[in-house]
């Protein structure tokens, strides 16, 4: 503090100003804090858990070269000569479900096109359709795990009977 301040302190102005600013600052902080509290209020505390693996009821009926849409898993189950694989039907652009076409897959929302193995052929999507992990459960059913992705060349060769 210099003598200039000291003079104002004597007149009492700077204390008022100081306290006023302190109060105003506290109010601003409180306001910011309230905004943050509101943001935290709006953020959901509990979210629905990750979806459980989806068993495919009759995977053995799928012939090699065929494609089966599994609605609860939002995925297509496919089979080739090496085994089973599952392609997610959720378009990597903005999340719509893709349709099956003779040439692969097509998303009805913005026109993205994918090859039968999920690679992007055209359209606004920038990433290929992921392949979802496949397993067998205790009842020997093929099970699709939506929470895990696998490389596109991964195959499941189920042990039957």
């Amino acid at each position, binding site marked *: 503090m210099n003598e200039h301040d000291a003079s104002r302190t004597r007149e009492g102005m700077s204390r008022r100003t100081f306290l006023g600013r302190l109060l105003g600052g506290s109010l601003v902080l409180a306001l910011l804090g309230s905004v943050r509290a509101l943001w935290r209020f709006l953020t959901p505390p509990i979210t629905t858990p990750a979806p459980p693996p989806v068993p495919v009821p009759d995977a053995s009926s799928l012939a090699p070269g065929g494609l089966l849409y599994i609605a609860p898993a939002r995925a297509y189950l496919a089979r080739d000569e090496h085994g089973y694989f599952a392609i997610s039907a959720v378009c990597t652009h*903005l*999340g*719509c479900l893709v349709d099956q076409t003779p040439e692969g897959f097509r998303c009805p929302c913005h026109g993205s096109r994918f090859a039968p193995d999920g690679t992007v052929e055209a359209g606004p999507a920038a990433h290929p359709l992921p392949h979802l992990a496949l397993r067998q459960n205790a009842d020997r059913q093929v099970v699709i795990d939506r929470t895990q992705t696998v490389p596109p060349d991964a195959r499941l060769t189920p042990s039957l009977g």
Partner: protein
Amino acid sequence: MTRMMRVLTSTRRRRRLWQRHQSILYALHPDRLPAESIRLTYTFGLGGISILAATLTILTGLFLTLYYQPTPEEAHASIVLIEDVVAFGSLIRALHYWAAQLFVLAVTLHMARIVFTGAYARPRRLNWLIGLGLLVLVLLWDFSGYVLRWDEGAHWALLVGTNLVGRIPHLGRSLYLVLVGDRQIGEAALLRFYGWHVIGLTLPVVFGIVYHLFRLRVDGGISRPPRPAGRPRRMVSKEVLFQRETIAALLITGGLLLLSALRPAPLGASASLDRPPPTAQAPWIFLWVQRLLRHLPPFWAGVGIPLALLTLLAAIPWLDPHARAGRWFDRRRGPVQALFAFIALLLIVLTVGEVIP
């Protein structure tokens, strides 16, 4: 009774009916205002139409809340109940829908009128921003109402819209959670959109309109062309304006009723998130965004460009700091008008391009 009849039938006294009965709406009008301000071909009454449409929408919406159920299992079925079973349900829902669409259309045209008559000029710059804020709120209001149908179109529009928000860098994840209330669309999202639509957006819009009107009065009332030199400005009493508003209100309400009786509000099939959407179309107000999404990366198409356009619009009063409110299409405001026309044309072309495959 005879006093009332005498009052009603007397030509001279008829005009003072609402004066005598102290109508609040009447009292809120300015006592005298320039005749040019209220000429139909100057303002087209778009601001008033907007307020009337908003009032009808809110009123009909109130009645709809008594039947609508905001859960994924019941939402669509409750709307079917309103449409098919509840007496006059279809009419009230249609009125809600058409009044809301008229509202959106009217505020957009009102904004155009403001630009082309230069009514954004000082001292109305703050009001311009308030109006723009109201426009954004109104579009969100329209979209949230569309979502509540929980039919196939609404479902996928919600999915795409919220996934778009989630793509915003850094903020996107938490914004998505706040908007949707869960990791994916479901019960929480519907409830939140219901809360926003019914009260969360209604209150800001209502207060916004009130403040918008207040600022209008403070800023000097409805804009008007400049006074021709040498001649006094012709003023009229609020009587005249109130009469015109009454006529407009009666005509527009009647027109909306007619439309509602002839064309029910649309309702698609019940939503199923497990099957691909049969046709995917955004609500008409966002068709231009859908068109952009086909060709541009999601962030730019869905967030970047709309925000940029909004910023451009917001900047209009500052892009033309020496503008003065006045005639339509005044040459001196040419660049700003051209910019606005360009933006409007762009949106129209994008929308049309999405509708016609």
